[in-house]
């Protein structure tokens, strides 16, 4: 054998060993280089002493110590590394620092753009102040979602054709949010404000998956992303609240009124920028720590199940009918959305290969009790419509309840089949992610069709 024959497998072995090291979070790429240099020196010395290439490699690796022990020693010395990656993971992944820096610059630019976007209408005589709440509510998602979509289009490197197609829904949304002469306090105007973000979130999702809304796993990733973003957003909002409160109080102490700064700039700009920054954080820490949404799901699934069952029992016992007003409709919709969310996140975090356990039974119980509550609510809405006729609110609520009813029925059916061992868990997953566009389609329908149908006053 020539020396070259020795070299090729050795290089492959070293590359593989390096690959294993790279998966250890406590070991950075610079350390890997240092360790690799050591390994090569050792191999060279052993080969010189007469060992064959692969023997020398095995001995050298053995002397280095087990990967677990090595990674533990590094973690003990660099415990901060396990935490720091929550913000900047690229070092650990061995990625070049330049890309991280570019991404940070892009994120900052987009966040600033989002913050400025919400101040744009003020230039056209629509200040962020009393009297314009309805305008801002309807257009809220349009200030930041296009920028978020741009971020993902940039990050995933989507083609120009897809980028143009991604721009279409936003252009259409801008038209439909503003073309109708909505009166103040108009029902359809409020419905537009509530439904437009749901419709547009699908466009963000398509950008998130890189333009191809095909593979189930990628769609599930988007579901996970949405959940994590919610949590991050709430955390950032809490910090922002503290910042705002302290700012106002500090300036009050020196008799300077800072409240208008907070109301005009700090809160609206911060709220927009936080969407971008939150998304970036979720992207950055992806797969580094256990995700939060599934943990919350596990915590709240039993609690919501209990509440729903107690509610149904007490309603049956007292025979009190549901008093259908707008608030009640919203409460029931929210409740059902929450249940679907709980199911969705439980599904997203579950190992599809695992066999049924107690938690799956609990999920089924939750779905079935939600179905019953949904049926009661639907019946109440239907009665109301037959007695007092159609209003945009009632039709919207009816549609949403029906959509959720179908989803929950499908979930319950698939859960039963899964628990009986008739169908794999992945069927449930497929069902849930395949259903996602339905929500957006309905929301788009409400935005587009309701104002002409029911009037915009």
């Amino acid at each position, binding site marked *: 054998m020539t020396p070259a024959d020795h070299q090729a497998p050795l290089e492959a072995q070293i590359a593989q060993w390096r690959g294993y090291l790279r998966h250890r979070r406590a070991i950075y790429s*610079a*350390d890997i*280089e*240092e*360790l690799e*240099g*050591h390994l*090569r*020196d*050792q191999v060279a*010395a052993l080969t010189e002493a007469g060992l064959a290439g692969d023997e020398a490699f095995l001995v050298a690796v053995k*002397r*280095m*110590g087990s990967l677990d*022990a*090595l990674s533990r*020693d*590094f973690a*003990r*010395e*660099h415990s901060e590394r396990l935490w720091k990656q929550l913000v900047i993971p690229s070092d650990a992944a061995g990625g070049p620092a330049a890309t991280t820096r570019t991404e940070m610059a892009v994120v900052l630019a987009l966040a600033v753009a989002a913050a400025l976007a919400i101040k744009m209408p003020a230039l056209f005589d629509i200040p962020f102040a009393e009297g314009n709440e309805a305008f801002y509510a309807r257009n809220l998602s349009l200030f930041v979602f296009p920028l978020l979509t741009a971020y993902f289009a940039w990050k995933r490197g989507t083609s120009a054709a897809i980028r143009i197609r991604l721009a279409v829904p936003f252009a259409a949304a801008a038209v439909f949010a503003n073309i109708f002469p909505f009166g103040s306090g108009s029902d359809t105007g409020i419905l537009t404000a509530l439904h437009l973000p749901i419709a547009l979130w699908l466009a963000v999702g398509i950008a998130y998956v890189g333009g191809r809304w095909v593979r189930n796993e990628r769609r599930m990733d988007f579901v996970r992303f949405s959940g994590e973003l919610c949590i991050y957003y709430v955390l950032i909002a809490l910090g922002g609240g503290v910042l705002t409160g302290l700012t106002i109080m500090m300036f009050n102490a020196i008799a300077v009124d800072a409240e208008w700064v907070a109301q005009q700039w700090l809160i609206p700009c911060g709220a927009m920028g936080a969407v971008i920054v939150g998304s970036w954080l979720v992207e950055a820490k992806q797969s580094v720590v256990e995700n939060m949404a599934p943990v919350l799901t596990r915590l709240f699934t039993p609690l919501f199940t209990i509440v729903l069952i107690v509610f149904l029992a007490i309603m049956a016992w007292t025979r009190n009918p549901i008093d259908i007003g707008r608030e009640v409709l919203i409460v029931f919709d929210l409740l059902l959305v929450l249940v679907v969310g709980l199911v969705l996140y439980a599904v997203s975090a579950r190992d599809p290969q695992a066999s049924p356990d107690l938690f799956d039974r609990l999920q089924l119980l939750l779905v079935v009790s939600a179905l019953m509550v949904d049926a009661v609510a639907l019946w109440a809405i239907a009665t109301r419509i037959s007695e007092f006729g159609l209003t945009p609110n009632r039709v919207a609520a009816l549609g949403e309840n029906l959509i959720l009813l179908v989803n929950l029925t499908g979930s319950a059916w698939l859960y039963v089949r899964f628990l009986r061992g008739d169908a794999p868990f992945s069927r449930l997953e497929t069902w849930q992610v395949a259903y996602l566009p339905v929500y957006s389609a309905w929301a788009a329908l409400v935005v587009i069709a309701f104002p002409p149908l029911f009037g915009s006053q």
Partner: protein
Amino acid sequence: MDLGKDLVAASATPLVLAILADGDSYGYAIIKRVTELSNGHLRWTDGMLYPVLHRLERQGLVAARWRASENGRKRKYYRITKAGRAQLAAQRERWHVVDQALRGIWMKVCET
């Protein structure tokens, strides 16, 4: 001879500092030197040395620099600092105390 984990760990710092006081060096060479000095009795798992070096670096006892080695690869060389020399002196005194105490009692035990 198995020296035991604690003794190996305790002797690592003074050994590394002393070797570096003798001249700048890098991980592989340090380990080779330790093996030579102990006639092969003191066997470290190679990977264990690096967290120790990084700790000393963080404590400011050694300084590190990447330099090209003779085979063209980059190599991280370590150099002892002023604080490191002070620490080495302190360590030496400590080990001297232990050594004295052990010697004293062993002479007696062996004589009887």
